[in-house]
């Protein structure tokens, strides 16, 4: 083994050179200093920031899985109160889903504009993302207010506790994302595409897409499975 110093990195570079057509592969020529391959040093800050935020998001998803598990366990503990079938209003859920999916799409477009270093389109798509996200939050607030007025509150039963904490935590995440989006609008406008601003935009993109992934789980497990009883 003495003649092979870095087998993994040597193999990685060999694969790069010999199989350039792989999926997800973007060829930029030979090895680059600071790219994190071989003995060229650690990865760039851009990679480390994105990867670190990815780890945080996975831990956030693990937290959501606890709420999902709580909901699944408490689903039938209605204590004589309303069950999920009495709560679901599918038309509203359809609009919420459409808003969040479109906002995920426009969020991606805003980052495509960032990569092209276009401030105007970055801002336009971020604003559209924010408006769609705001529409989602308002629909959810409307749903919660409607339920509260019928006396359907978290304290009513174990099932309702699980329902409100799962859906509400997701709504809180979207609301926090909206605040973040507002600060990103200001930062892009004032500071431009400085390196750390682009890093923050990467993280915001990740956050927003992850929220949509969690919503896919919520509308399927809570609303659709609830509507078929």
């Amino acid at each position, binding site marked *: 083994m003495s003649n092979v110093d870095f087998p993994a990195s040597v193999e990685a570079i060999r694969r790069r050179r010999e199989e350039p057509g792989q999926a997800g592969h*973007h060829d930029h020529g030979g090895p680059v200093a600071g790219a994190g391959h071989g003995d060229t040093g650690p990865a760039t800050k851009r990679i480390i920031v994105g990867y670190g935020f990815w780890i945080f998001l996975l831990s956030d998803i693990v937290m959501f899985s606890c709420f999902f598990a709580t909901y699944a366990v408490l689903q039938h503990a209605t204590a004589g109160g309303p069950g999920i079938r009495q709560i679901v209003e599918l038309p509203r859920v359809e609009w919420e889903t459409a808003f969040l999916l479109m906002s995920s799409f426009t969020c991606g477009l805003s980052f495509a504009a960032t990569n092209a270093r276009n401030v105007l389109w970055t801002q336009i798509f971020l604003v559209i993302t924010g408006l769609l996200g705001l529409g989602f939050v308002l629909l959810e607030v409307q749903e919660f207010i409607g339920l509260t007025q019928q006396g359907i509150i978290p304290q009513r039963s174990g099932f309702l506790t699980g329902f409100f904490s799962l859906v509400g935590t997701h709504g809180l995440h979207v609301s926090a994302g909206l605040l973040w989006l507002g600060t990103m609008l200001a930062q892009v406008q004032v500071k431009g595409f400085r390196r750390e601003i682009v890093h923050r935009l990467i993280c915001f993109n990740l956050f927003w897409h992850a929220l949509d992934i969690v919503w896919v789980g919520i509308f399927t497990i809570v609303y659709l499975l609830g509507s078929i009883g």
Partner: protein
Amino acid sequence: MSDLERHYDSAPGDEPQDSPGHWVRTYLLGLGFATILTIASFWIAAAHPIWGPAVPVALIVLAIAQMGVHLVFFLHVTTGPDNTNNVLALAFGVMVVALVVLGSIWIMDHLNQNMMPTDQQMQM
């Protein structure tokens, strides 16, 4: 773009340097697939076009497929060598999620079955 910004590894959600058209196409594809899967989910739940007991299974399969579409087209998590770390972290996350959700449902279901019904408790 300095040399340091050019990279081999990819962080999820990041867009390696490519023409804007490439990324717009990727997002359009993702939006298309996600829309089809979403409409399929709501249609199956509302219209019951398939055998009743299979509806929940179909909904869960569609949801997992849509999460996959989001991961690939929106978060750019791929099977490429530049994504090994991302996929490993994701796999660990999925494992923990599966343990928490399936484990909770399994254990609590058994506890439920072992509980004495309330009316029998009253008589004791």
